[in-house]
């Protein structure tokens, strides 16, 4: 990595933050203003950072115990009564164990439940694939009628909580545990169904979500050194999908790279591919989809991100490879 890129890396790499703290803090703040806000969890009071919420609003924290199907159904019942339930659980258990409840009770029933997938993706590192949720984006993207929000940093996490509380609708928020730097500008706002342009560029577009956004910025800085101008889009919303931004990237730049801490089978990359694949031939630019393709071996989150080719260096290589294909 060049000196310039290393400088950028250093500037965006520290300090880093666990988004769960911002999530819990914002939820508590909103709960003080709006008594319709309730939290539901599956014994995950600690891991969902709900201890302070419980202390202040013991009646408004519904802990159903280790029972995720009931947890999501209870959320739907609370929502049907006009309350605003934030249903919090580790993402693998929230999205897998209760997928049919998410489909029938939340998305199909259009009950405005806010599903908060805590510690998603590879956050549980060495605990292994039973505790990873690289599938959550694929599973939920298959359901009509539910928003999927992947905040990139603390600010966006807070904004996602506020947006969900102000205009409740069926929503999944992926609340990261793996510490990430602040990447969104102070003045930025979270807009439903829109990608954020974090960096302009006309050569290649990197579309990244969550953990991968800061890495995309580092990669863009490295590419600049070799004369490549990379556009960086922060895919804070996976659903609704920002089709306009994807089309613009395909028409205005010569290649697209997607990067996510998720399986490539149906997440952000697959969504982008399905848009690009239907464009006129001149806009069907080379595409590289970075993500996971198998169950993870043993390792820390940081190690596994490297193992699956999700480092800034991997993004640079993918961009160069895609550009050479054009």
């Amino acid at each position, binding site marked *: 990595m060049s000196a310039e890129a290393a400088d950028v890396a250093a500037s965006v790499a520290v300090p880093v933050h666990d988004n769960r703290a911002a999530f819990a803090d914002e939820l508590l703040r909103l709960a003080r203003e709006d008594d319709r806000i309730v939290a539901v969890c599956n014994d995950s009071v600690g891991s969902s950072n709900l201890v302070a919420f419980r202390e202040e609003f013991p009646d408004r924290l519904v802990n159903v*115990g280790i029972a995720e*199907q009931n947890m999501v159904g209870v959320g*739907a019942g609370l929502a049907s009564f006009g309350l605003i339930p934030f249903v919090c659980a580790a993402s693998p258990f929230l999205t897998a164990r209760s997928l049919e409840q998410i489909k029938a009770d939340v998305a199909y029933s259009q009950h405005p439940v806010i599903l908060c997938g805590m510690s998603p993706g590879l956050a549980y590192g060495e605990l292994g694939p039973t505790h990873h949720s690289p599938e959550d984006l694929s599973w939920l993207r298959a359901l009509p009628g539910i928003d999927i929000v992947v905040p990139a940093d603390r600010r966006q996490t807070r904004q996602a909580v506020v947006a969900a509380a102000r205009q409740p609708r069926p929503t999944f928020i992926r609340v990261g545990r793996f510490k990430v730097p602040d990447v969104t500008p102070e003045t930025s706002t979270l807009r439903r169904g829109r990608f954020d342009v974090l960096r302009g560029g006309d050569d290649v577009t990197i579309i990244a979500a969550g953990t991968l956004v800061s890495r995309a910025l580092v990669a863009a800085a490295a590419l600049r050194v070799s004369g490549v101008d990379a556009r960086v889009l922060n895919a804070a919303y996976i659903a609704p999908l920002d089709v306009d931004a994807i089309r613009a990237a395909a028409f205005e730049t010569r290649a697209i790279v997607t990067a996510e801490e998720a399986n490539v089978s149906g997440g952000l990359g697959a969504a982008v591919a399905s848009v690009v694949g239907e464009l006129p031939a001149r806009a069907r630019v080379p595409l590289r989809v970075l993500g996971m393709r198998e169950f993870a071996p043993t390792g820390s989150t940081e190690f596994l991100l490297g193992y699956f080719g999700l480092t800034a260096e991997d993004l640079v290589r993918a961009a160069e490879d895609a550009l050479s294909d054009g």
Partner: protein
Amino acid sequence: MLSTDLSQVERWRRRRAEVAAASPDRRRELLADTARRTRRNVVRMIRTAGQGHIGGDFSVADILTTLFSHTLRVDPAAPSARGTDRFILSKGHCAASLYSTLADAGYFPLRALDTFMAPLSELNGHPNRVKVPGVETNTGPLGHGLPVAVGQAVAARLTGSDTRVFVVLGDGELQEGSNWEALMAAAHLRLDNLILIVDRNRLQQGARTEDTNGLEPLEARLRAFGCEVRRADGHDFDALIEAFLPATENGPVAVIADTVKGKGVSFMEDRVEWHHKVPTEDQVEQAMRELA
């Protein structure tokens, strides 16, 4: 979304008032009339659609009639309004009986029943709250209604409402683990505003419950899970009315309603094949004669 039929709501209100004021004998007559109308509607709907779940529709018909013609505090002109009771049919495959009951109360026009399962009809094979007034949550996959009802009961308590939440489950449905998760929570939270009604017709899709994955001893199981258990003949209106009285213990009420699948039509009663068999024209005629 279907719209309310206000003149039908008026007729329903007058009938409810009559039921409330009637002598026990007259009350039985009035409720039996409504239940017979429901079963006749169901036969017509399933004949027209060429599909449906007639056996379970008939086993639950008297329960639905008792609830909507007597027990539930609801206003079809303002479904889910604050202070009203909530009702969930967890065994969503018996939508025809539910639709007929709702239309009879004016939640939507009776003529909509003719569209049951027709292309683009609001009346799907399983109820959809987005399209059908009076439906609280979309059911069909089993084991979904009770957890949602638990959430509503918690919400009622949190908001200081005296709403009671009623949920009807099929007996085979109790094989779904989610129900037992929900029961544990309901008892732990002492939800005395929740009442679950088990349509105990003893048959599931392919066989008897006890030959498939036995539920007995069901009373003891429900009691062990913290329910105030009541047992009633699911076709005896007086018994159902009494079973639906508010809780006397500090927790959820479970009513085991002993029913007969296919109740009301001799050749369907307690026959496993009538789970979702469609009657022929001759069978329709005979059924309508028996339900006259």
